[in-house]
């Protein structure tokens, strides 16, 4: 038995108490859907887990009506202090049921249990705990002295971090005083439904959070519902664009968290051991199903060969397999559809002349699997250097000077994240200044924290989630609130203002 061989150590699913079938969570109750249902499966085995309701337009309408009623009658009238206490309760309940949520997440999504257990679920609790404390301090959020909630928030989340994305969306929305209708991703609805049970245990007033499961059509109906005041979406840039078009002119406040093609830049003076771990974490964390994944490795030419060699030997030790096994590093690809996309782009990478390499690893027979893959000899025009693959596939490029690294890193319509590896602080800060990306990790990668804003430049979307800035995305300046300057100019220069108004009126006539 070599040091890499372990006995299987699967986390037991006995902790789960799943229902065979879930309805929609509307107005505080699970209700049957008006339309069809579908099965959610484990991507590691393709075995069904539970039957899920496919929300129709009528269901969405019901959910938005419940959210509106809860907003008008309860949530917007409740003190921030009391809202905060509900969020604290939710944070505690998530902690109490953490293991159960982690097992359900790995089962439904395919991610390794060590990630759902040690990253996703703890961050979910942290997110609610962080925003709970904001609920009675909104005047410090940076949107003026009299901030107001927006109303009903429509939230559509992806399948890569199902429960964590739910927390990113719901926690700040509720803290700011909004009510919510959330649509989980089609392939990963399970933990959102367990979360609905947590809301019942927390005794959250009915209608404050509504969860409508379904596919793209359900999300479209939600986003386009006329009684929605805020739309928050995390997902592909193509769908983000569609939402930006369909909400144009409606006055709905919009936050979009879209795709990425992050550069992870390794300078020749980088701490190599840490950099290798950071590169691996950057692209193979969560099977590379990460919008901010470090999918383009830019290595300084003088250390290119050494870094690639060490990466390969590190990849030989990654354990791909059962997501519920505590020793698993890389789990299952979330869906057959996503697997097809990863395969297609990887084949294109080979066809375009890049060199493909994967460690020898045995993939399970059933389920959706893709071995960790590295492409070398990649040029900036290759599709694997331009398009988001959203899988465990790393494209390696090289550079000679910092200026070349910056130019290559910014040579993308995306701008979500980037990494810099160097022992020289002044170089890191200078390069960080020039990278057009919303999150930059220096000598680390893929770190998330509720206190830290996250979001993109350019076609990676707009708005921030996390931190004070993430709260501001769910607030507006209250009526009567005006900037210092406007107040001053009104007070000091009122005669002139009067003249000015007349002149404008005259012009309009």
């Amino acid at each position: 038995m070599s040091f890499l061989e372990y006995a299987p150590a699967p986390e037991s699913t006995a902790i789960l108490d799943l229902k065979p079938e879930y309805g929609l969570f509307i107005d505080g109750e699970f209700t049957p859907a008006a339309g069809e249902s579908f099965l959610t499966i484990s991507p590691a085995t393709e075995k069904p887990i539970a039957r899920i309701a496919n929300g129709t337009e009528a269901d969405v309408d019901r959910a938005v009506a419940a959210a509106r009623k809860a907003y008008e009658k309860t949530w917007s009238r409740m003190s921030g202090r009391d809202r905060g206490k509900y969020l604290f309760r939710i944070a505690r309940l998530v902690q109490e049921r953490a293991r159960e949520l982690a097992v359900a997440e790995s089962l439904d999504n395919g991610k390794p249990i060590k990630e759902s257990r040690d990253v996703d679920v703890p961050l979910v609790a942290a997110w609610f705990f962080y925003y709970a404390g904001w609920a009675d301090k909104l005047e410090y959020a940076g949107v003026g002295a009299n901030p107001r909630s927006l109303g009903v928030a429509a939230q559509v989340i992806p399948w890569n971090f199902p429960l964590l994305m739910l927390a990113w969306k719901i926690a700040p929305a509720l803290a700011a005083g909004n009510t919510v209708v959330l649509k989980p991703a089609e392939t990963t609805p399970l933990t959102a439904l367990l979360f609905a049970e947590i809301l019942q245990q927390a005794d959250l007033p009915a209608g404050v959070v509504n969860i409508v499961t379904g596919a793209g059509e359900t999300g479209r109906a939600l986003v386009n519902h006329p009684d929605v005041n805020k739309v928050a979406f995390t997902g592909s840039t193509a769908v983000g664009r569609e939402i930006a078009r369909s909400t144009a002119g409606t006055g709905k406040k919009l936050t979009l968290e879209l795709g990425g093609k992050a550069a992870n830049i390794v300078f020749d003076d980088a701490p190599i051991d840490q950099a290798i771990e950071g590169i691996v974490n950057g692209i193979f964390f969560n099977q590379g199903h990460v919008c901010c994944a470090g999918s383009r490795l830019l290595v300084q030419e003088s250390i290119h060969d050494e870094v690639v060699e060490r990466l390969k030997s590190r990849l030989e030790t990654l354990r791909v397999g059962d997501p519920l096994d505590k020793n698993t590093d890389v789990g299952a690809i979330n869906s057959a559809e996503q697997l097809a996309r990863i395969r297609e782009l990887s084949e294109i990478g080979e066809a375009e002349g890049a060199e493909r390499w994967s460690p020898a690893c045995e993939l399970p027979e059933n389920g959706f699997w893709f071995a960790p893959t590295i492409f070398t000899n990649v040029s900036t025009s290759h599709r694997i250097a331009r398009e988001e693959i959203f899988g465990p596939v790393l494209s390696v490029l090289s550079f000679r000077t910092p200026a070349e690294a910056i130019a290559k890193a910014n040579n993308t319509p995306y701008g979500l994240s980037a990494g810099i590896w160097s022992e020289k602080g002044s170089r890191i800060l200078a390069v960080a200044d020039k990278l057009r990306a919303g999150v930059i990790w220096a000598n680390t990668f893929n770190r998330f924290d509720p206190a830290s804003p996250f979001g993109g430049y350019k076609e990676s979307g707009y708005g921030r989630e996390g931190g004070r800035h993430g709260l501001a995305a769910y607030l507006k300046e209250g009526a009567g609130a005006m900037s210092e300057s406007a107040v001053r100019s009104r007070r000091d220069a009122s005669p002139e203002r009067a003249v000015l108004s007349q002149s404008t009126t005259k012009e309009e006539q």
Partner: protein
Amino acid sequence: MSTHVSVPKTYKLYVNGAFPRSESGRVYEVVDSKGRFLANAAQASRKDARDAVVAARAAVGGWSGATAYNRGQVLYRVAEVLEGRRAQFEDEIVRQEGVSASAARAQVDEAIDRWVWYAGWADKYAQVAGNANPVSGPYFNLSVPEPTGVVAIVAPQDSALLGLVSAVAPALVAGNTVVVVASEAHPLSAITLGEVLATSDLPKGVVNVLTGSPAELAPWLASHADVNALDLVGASALEWIDLEIAAAETLKRVLPPEEGPDAAAPSLARIGAFTEIKTVWHTKALI
């Protein structure tokens, strides 16, 4: 004593620090409130708009890379030069808008004061909009606002100077560069403002002023892939929802139309609308 025969000014565009005519050779008549001829303004074309975007893009690096103190001083310098030219602005406002001399004076006063207010924000905005983040781990973590890049603006249409200043100044504060389509009916003050900018140490290309038809020019700017943000403050009479839809193609940041005398009122939100929050994490050694 002979009577002086006046030398009227040719109003051209202000692009890349120079005053070119429209490449199309087109002009349109600007008239006063009674319909009398005032001047021929250049009627900018799609090509002029694209040239302006090229100039604005080229200026982003220098302007956003300047120190905030330096940007603040250059913007303050603009207010100084504006003040020195106030007689000309007042005269043009009276002639274009048909308002009284005191109303024109009030408009110039407010335009200068707003410009000074925004100039002072250049080296303070990041302190108010950014912050340190207390993350759970050994990391230095800082969020700061950065300029989004090239901002295209449809200036308020009912005001010759104040509306223009109220829309352009906040976009410049954080380090963005601007392509602005002036008021179609009152474009002369915009070109005179261009003369102020050209003599205020503002680097070429940081502000580019187009005169002509907003309905013709705005669609090209809204769909231009090298424009990062679109301020539709003066676009209420246009098919502005179509402009917003066009802007969605490259996920531009968009500000909607505003009407009335409070359009583009001074606010931090106007500066923030054209910034991106960048968050940098850096490891701390375990010692």
